[in-house]
């Protein structure tokens, strides 16, 4: 993938909406940059891309992106994008939202969109907590880690969003971190090119609300933790069980080809060519 220039990135940003509201050292900017690099590398018509988000720190990203953007209610980005995609299949639909938004309040929508295999790309900004409201635990908070609502360590086990997406029927599942930022644009571009429901989980650092309770109180410590705990799939595979504990693989974890919902619906009802 050719590395896009700063000027190219700026062309896709609503510069008048900056500065953004994220804390210094937040991982969200790295993911935003990677997303834009993916969009530029695919040479997507900026008038044909709709970006939908939910509620939370990461969901505010859409305000800064110069496309058609919809900032929906908490958890509702995926079903709203489903309506957009079904009504105008020629539009490219991307959902950008956080771990609480996608896995908790929007969890039901997530699994059903995966089951349908509708052509939507979901990028999950996973910072393990609800940053905007002060650092409460989310369904992706690791067990025993601390949060504003779990000061003795989180009692519940988390979802593995990869397993959840795969079980539900997603056909492209990738994971990366903000430390492994260089791999990220290609993984996102792969998801956007994939015809079907694609999920890219990105581990993002929130040292302000999450790290401070878990001995990772600086942005650097958050990144170091990501570097130590996530490794490429091929290297992860050769680890023994003890070495795998506490670590997760990154990269393209799963992909398959299965009829995409919007196209399949139109075939079943003999609706002919998709409108433009």
């Amino acid at each position, binding site marked *: 993938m050719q590395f896009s220039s700063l000027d190219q990135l700026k062309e896709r940003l609503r510069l008048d*909406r900056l500065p953004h509201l994220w804390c210094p050292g937040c991982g969200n900017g790295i993911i935003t940059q990677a997303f834009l690099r993916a969009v530029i590398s695919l040479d997507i018509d900026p008038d044909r891309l709709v970006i939908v988000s939910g509620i939370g720190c990461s969901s505010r990203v*859409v*305000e800064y992106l110069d496309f*058609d953007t919809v900032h929906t209610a908490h958890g*509702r980005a995926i*079903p709203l994008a*489903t*309506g957009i995609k079904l009504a*105008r299949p020629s539009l490219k639909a991307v959902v950008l939202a956080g771990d609480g938004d996608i896995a908790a309040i929007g969890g039901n929508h997530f699994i059903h969109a995966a089951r349908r295999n509708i052509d939507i790309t979901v990028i999950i900004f996973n910072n393990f907590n609800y940053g905007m409201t002060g650092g409460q635990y989310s369904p992706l908070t690791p067990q025993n880690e601390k949060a504003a609502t779990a000061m003795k360590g989180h009692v519940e086990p988390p979802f593995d969003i990869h397993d959840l997406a795969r079980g539900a029927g997603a056909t492209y599942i990738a994971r990366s971190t903000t430390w492994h930022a260089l791999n990220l644009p290609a993984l996102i571009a792969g998801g956007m090119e994939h015809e079907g429901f694609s999920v890219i989980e990105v581990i993002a650092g929130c040292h302000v609300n999450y790290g401070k309770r878990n001995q990772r109180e600086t942005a650097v410590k958050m990144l170091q933790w990501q570097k130590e705990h996530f490794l490429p799939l091929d290297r992860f595979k050769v680890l023994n069980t003890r070495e795998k504990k506490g670590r997760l693989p990154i990269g393209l974890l799963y992909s398959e080809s299965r009829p995409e919902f919007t196209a399949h*619906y139109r075939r079943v009802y003999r609706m002919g060519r998709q409108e433009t």
Partner: protein
Amino acid sequence: MLQPHAKGSVTLMQGNRACAEAALAANMRFFAGYPITPSSEIADFLSTALPEKGGIFIQMEDEIASMAAVIGASLAGAKAMTATSGPGFTLMQELIGYAALCEIPCVIVNVQRGGPSTGLPTSPAQGDVMQCKWGSHGDYPIIVLAPSSVSETFDLTIRAFNLSEALRTPVILLSDEIVGHLYERIMLPQRDDIRLAARRAPSEPMPGSYRPYAVRNPREVPIIPDLGTGFHFHATGLIHDEEGFPTRDPQQAAALITRLHEKINCRKREICQVEKRRVDDAAVLLCSFGATARSCFQVVKDAREQGEKIGGINIKTLWPFPDFVFRELPPGVETIVVCEMNQGQIIGEVERAVCGRIKVKAVNDSSGTMMAPGEISSAVFKS
């Protein structure tokens, strides 16, 4: 599928079917819903009929998702609707507020059944009048139309789409189990006689300079582009400025909420419809809406034959409430009897409108059975 719109025809039709047929006649091309009685027939019919018209039907995972999909489709330019009943309507409230704030046209059909909670599936009630008005949090206006017959269901469904598209607001068609499941004679209008309002679109893309929520005066309806038309429009459930971006400016916040209300309120007289019968010389007025209005009109007819000075009002537009109708009643009206299948909801609006000048009495029924004419006449004439 009936082809009623090429030329007018008389037929026997169910209320829910009339709603679905009218929606197709209004060029509705996107339906998302979740199964619930007594609204199921609407989804059942549209699941086959919509794709034949090039439209999309989808059964979502719940009513929250249904409302989200409807909003997404509408933002993308489709006339969109959903249909539900009490428990589902409750789940839809979250995004009805979103549609009201972001000014996204959509039609929500609520075929009322007994509540609260799972209530009485599937018996009639009229307990959702206030939920329609106040169901989502915050201070927003809404338009609610209540049909009392199969024929009115057809007409008001068309009207719901027209008001929704022209004013860029969610519109609720508040039916009930009786009207929804009733089969009766309907004269379907000729296609040419159906007048449809089109959503206004900006003439050409002006990237970077377009202010979708800007209006020249607060009564105007903003011209908001559909997604995918080159405007790079931003929709948000946050209080927004004229460009559509979040603002915390007190003046802009106040201006937005005031404008949303003014958009509906300044058109109250054109939005509000009531059907009056024998009102001119009446001393007693029976006031109702939906299925109960049918019983009221029967009482008016029967009592008039007995020489009683009685009239009736069928409120077809519940919200905004047509209070001017009640303020402008003939001076001879001494008593208004408000009949509703609940413990008293629209009566509060009638009392507010007449402001103590006319005696207001209530006939309420929460039995899950239709309020029969006899029930009303004995309540009116025994005292």
